[in-house]
């Protein structure tokens, strides 16, 4: 660079949104009854999914210490030479966590896809009653 750094230009582009705003989702924006019902259904399905995903995690986190507390003999159990606690907390837990994560992401995206379809149907002229 012999001619000095190029002049800096501040770029303030438009929002990165592929599709232009369409009026058909105004129901949700304007907090109409229909919009509120639609959002409520999405929130409920996502919350249910969150519960289903976190329940095994909570059971694991609550159960493992409790099991070792109630049955201290577990600390002496060996599996293939490894103490049980080491096998579970040092290794097996990670595939378990990743598995829950993958399960959640798939389901959450499906829920959102369903919601997008629902909005599409609800906002058609005629309220989605046409065939």
């Amino acid at each position: 660079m012999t001619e000095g750094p190029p002049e800096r230009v501040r770029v303030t582009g438009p929002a990165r949104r592929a599709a232009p705003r369409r009026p058909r989702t105004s129901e949700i924006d304007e907090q109409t009854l229909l919009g509120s019902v639609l959002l409520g259904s999405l929130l409920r399905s996502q919350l249910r999914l969150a519960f289903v995903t976190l329940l095994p995690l909570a059971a694991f986190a609550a159960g493992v210490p409790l099991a070792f507390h109630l049955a201290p003999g577990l600390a002496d159990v060996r599996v293939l030479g490894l103490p049980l606690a080491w096998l579970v907390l040092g290794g097996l837990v990670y595939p378990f966590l990743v598995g829950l994560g993958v399960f959640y992401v798939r389901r959450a995206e499906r829920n959102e896809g369903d919601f997008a379809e629902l909005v599409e149907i609800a906002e058609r002229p005629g309220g989605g009653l046409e065939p």
Partner: protein
Amino acid sequence: MNGSAPSVVAVVLVTVATLAIGTWGLRFSRTTSDFFVASRTVRPALNASAIGGEYLSAASFLGVAGLVLVFGADMLWYPVGWTAGYLVLLVLVAAPLRRSGAYTLPDFAEARLASPRVRAASSLLVVAIGWLYLLPQFQGAGLVMEAAIGAPQWLGAVVVAVVVLVNVISGGMRSITFVQAFQYWLKLTALLIPAIVLLGVWVGDGAPNPADAAGGGDEGSLWSLPLGSGGAEGLYLTYSLIVATFLGTMGLPHVVVRFYTNPDGRAARRTTMVVLGLLGIFYLLPPVYGALGRVYGGDARPDVLVLELPQLMVPGTGGDLLAALVTAGAFAAFLSTSSGLSIAVAGVVSQDVFGRARLPGITAFRLGAVVAVAVPGLLALAAPNVGVARAVGLAFAVAASTFCPLLVLGIWWRGLTDVGALAGMAVGFLGSGTGVVYALGNEQTLGWGAALLGQPAAWSVPLAFATMVVVSRATRGRVPPHVLRFMVRLHTPEAVALDRG
């Protein structure tokens, strides 16, 4: 083992590579948005590596192995919790947080609750948690420099602080993203290759079982018990640790700020999923060092076991080279976590302190970075050594008691009010903060009083949640009028076109 030449070269190489990648990233940093959130265009694979690089601090790289060596299986909950924290974050926070469109945690708080006071409280908390987390990073860097190359302790802290400052000031978030991604893979390599060699040595020695070894720390079956010292207190401490780590991750400022760099909510989720995998792979390794340390590390210091074990197990040049590799990884751990935290704190300081002074965005950000690094840097030189994993654990407890309820209730419950949020955060902060002050001043960890104060999360988190809900209920009239619109924005997938104003 002081002053080993390969270790000196390793530290210099990591420093140079960090600065070089940061400078290279500078070519892409143009706007204020680049500095704060890399203009929100970072793809999941790169962003996940960056999150992993930023998240795996000295506590993960050095602390876990030492704790496992001394205390055994109960310390395995630290890496488990640090990973599970991302699952909780993925499920409850990731996509809505990205869709909220805010830059920082205080931005989110203000947008959700329409209250400058909640914003101010959140800003203070970000700075407090950030500094609490930065302090042990700087101190740990001094420890590593001393153990690896025989440098005085202050030198490590100063080197890390200066490198971080240069990188953050020059390129902001955009250049740091490349640095962090590089450092995840560096840290993984730096633990993986020596681990494979050391396991080979161990098998060659007839694979003595670490659980039967007489090495320092807890004896026999206590070492295999994932419950602290056992008994009801041990159970409480374990649960408290689990609560703090599982719920604290989402409230760490340097973690949260990363989510705004995703292009959209869907990408935020996929990024988090990849992070889970990356962390899972990494955290298989530190316990290996802890276990081998029990067999071979008779006279190693637990704090720097990872650095000393290669030379204890492999004599000669081989050991020196492996030690240099782990030293490089440890240094990368300090640099990356400190950079991420500094960015997060600098973002808040510049917006809420210097932004008011009407400085231009980038100048304010750079000034903020100086403050963000200088204060904990000076504290690290002045304060006594607090132990990396311990201080980091307290930062998690504070985050879990304050930002976790704010985020979870703010995202999923329409009824949250500004007064409720303030009251809940205050209660959570006082509860966990008392624990911090107590733990920093006291070494003793016996008895119920010490357990309840030293690991406050198990009571301070539920208390903060309850306070937020009860006070919000009592001030029902203060629910912001735009709440439904905001919730729509948080939860509606990008495929549905909305006014996201």
